[in-house]
């Protein structure tokens, strides 16, 4: 069963939902993005990779909005970035190689952790 590729309107709708979630909760747009993009006909790995492509510009906008709203302590985040970049280098290789089943297991596990935490706090 070949999934039908969706058109521009569907992608625009995806964007609206992803943006609204990100704007309302400060994050979490990616959670909505992965299944929505999968629905659009992308493969599992493409959905995960493309969710980043969509949430990156959105986060850049959020960053601007956030830093306008309050004092932002840059020095807390900066030392973490080199370590994160090292992780991203590995992640780039891993996404190419990992099986869809494991990718989904990791994603599902983290979602349950996140959802549970949201309910409890």
């Amino acid at each position, binding site marked *: 069963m070949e999934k039908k590729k969706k058109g521009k*309107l569907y992608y625009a709708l995806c964007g609206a939902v992803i943006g*609204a979630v990100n704007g309302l909760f400060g994050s*979490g747009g990616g959670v909505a993005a992965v299944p929505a993009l999968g629905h659009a006909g992308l493969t599992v790995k493409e959905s*995960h*990779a493309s969710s980043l*492509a969509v949430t990156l510009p*959105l986060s850049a906008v959020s960053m601007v909005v956030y830093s306008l709203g309050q004092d932002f302590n840059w020095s807390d985040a900066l030392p973490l970035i080199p370590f994160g970049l090292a992780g991203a280098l590995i992640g780039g290789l891993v996404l190419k190689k990992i099986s869809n089943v494991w990718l989904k297991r990791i994603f599902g596990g*983290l979602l349950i952790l996140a*959802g549970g935490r949201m309910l409890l706090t």
Partner: protein
Amino acid sequence: MLWSYVAAFLTGILASLGVGGGMLLIIYLTVFAGFDQLSAQGINLLYFLPIALLAVILHTKNHLINWKPLVPAILVGIVGAVIGSIIAKFIDKEILRTVFAVFVLIIGVKEILYKKEDEKTPVKHNTAIPPKTYRGKFKHS
């Protein structure tokens, strides 16, 4: 501080897989490093930008991102994010948060229960036409 670096490294791997690694960093920062939720969100946001940029470049090289169809999603998404963040200041988000949390949990369970794709889709060469390798044999016998 050492643990922050470990958390940042592991989060970098997960974030670049597009599995919501940022949220893991927020949990680390609030539960173990003593930041409040809003500061943690801010730190995560700034942290996420260069990591996601590197990941997106790598994934594009690996042909996992086709940018063209994503353009409308990004453009509408930016508008949605701005509107969402304005609305967020005026409404009580408690109910919305609970609904979203339940939604996230449901997706999480669905993802974990996912079976291999080739078990779901019908196997094509299982039908009337025998695989090529057999055809020659039938002719000769």
